């Protein structure tokens, strides 16, 4: 089996579709090979459910990427986001989740046809700045809820969400996260990308969990593996 994914991955990063080498070289210290493989499959399924949810509420077909999982040093998170998103100008929002799993979801959205998406979400005419921000927060909320909610449901975990907050519109992709703002040294990063093909709008969802939280996650994954 090869590690070749759809796009070149930065060192220490592997597509979920190629479990064996990923776990051999990059399995997080606190997650075993089996746990990582399980998380990848669960993320994959959570993603599919999220895509289906979006397709149902916005009546749009959503193309899904293969989820990518890695344990990263927080200093590399900005580089990683740039790697996922590319050079484009982006808008971004964050949302915290808490309970049996704790962390933050970053949702980074490229340009694309916002007015058309706004129309689907019930806005009238051209979006003003407030509406654009609100739409961004809503997309972050829906994606975060669907993905993390989907993963939590499969793990039988109870997870709640705080209201999403704005990082900014029209940002440089390097500026989504500033290393000095990060308060953890290492984080588990799960990345997925949704593309709404009809209006070329793609959204990257990056879930980050502090390494300390992995103990809880590992227990949940073990329980899941036991039931197999």
């Amino acid at each position: 089996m090869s590690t070749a994914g759809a796009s070149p991955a930065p060192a220490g990063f592997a597509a979920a579709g190629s479990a064996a080498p990923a776990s051999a070289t990059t399995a997080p210290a606190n997650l075993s090979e089996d746990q990582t493989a399980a998380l990848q499959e669960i993320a994959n399924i959570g993603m599919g459910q999220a895509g289906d949810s979006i397709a149902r509420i916005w009546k749009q077909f959503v193309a899904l990427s293969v989820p990518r999982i890695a344990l990263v040093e927080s200093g590399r998170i900005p580089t990683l986001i740039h790697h996922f998103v590319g050079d484009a100008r982006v808008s971004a929002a964050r949302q915290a989740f808490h309970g049996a799993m704790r962390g933050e979801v970053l949702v980074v959205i490229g340009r694309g046809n916002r007015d058309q998406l706004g129309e689907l979400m019930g806005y009238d005419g051209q979006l003003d700045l407030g509406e654009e921000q609100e739409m961004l927060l809503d997309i972050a909320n829906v994606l975060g809820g669907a993905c993390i909610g989907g993963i939590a449901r499969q793990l039988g975990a109870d997870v709640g969400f705080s209201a999403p907050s704005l990082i900014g519109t029209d940002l440089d992709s390097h500026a989504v996260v500033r290393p000095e703002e990060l308060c953890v040294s290492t984080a588990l990063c799960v990345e997925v990308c949704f593309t709404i093909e009809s209006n070329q709008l793609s959204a990257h969802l990056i879930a980050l969990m502090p390494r300390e939280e992995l103990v809880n996650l590992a227990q949940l994954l073990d329980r899941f593996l036991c039931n197999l």
Partner: protein
Amino acid sequence: MTVSVLVVDDSPIARKMLRKALPVDWDITVQEACNGEEAMTHYRAGKVDVMFLDLTMPTMDGFEVLAALQKEDLNCFVIVVSADVQPQARERALGLGAIAFVAKPVNAESVRTVLREYGVLV
């Protein structure tokens, strides 16, 4: 008669989950493949009666396998097992000759229902 089953998925966990969902009273031999190419090798060896096929895989995905099988007479039952459960994905899979579409995560009941529906299992 013993039925030959092939489970195709790049995730070992997914393969494990699927094997667990297969009916216990079903007389089968199970083989595994972790990508489309391996699946085709098994198929060409003439040893596959029922194939459980994942759609997203790194080398040769499920859609490509379906297309290749159609070219080579499609001499087996293909049940697509997918995390992407949007209607478009389902329609495309069925359009390429899959007999059924099962959403992940799979469970024993949904697999049994599908097998019964197509007379693979009595």
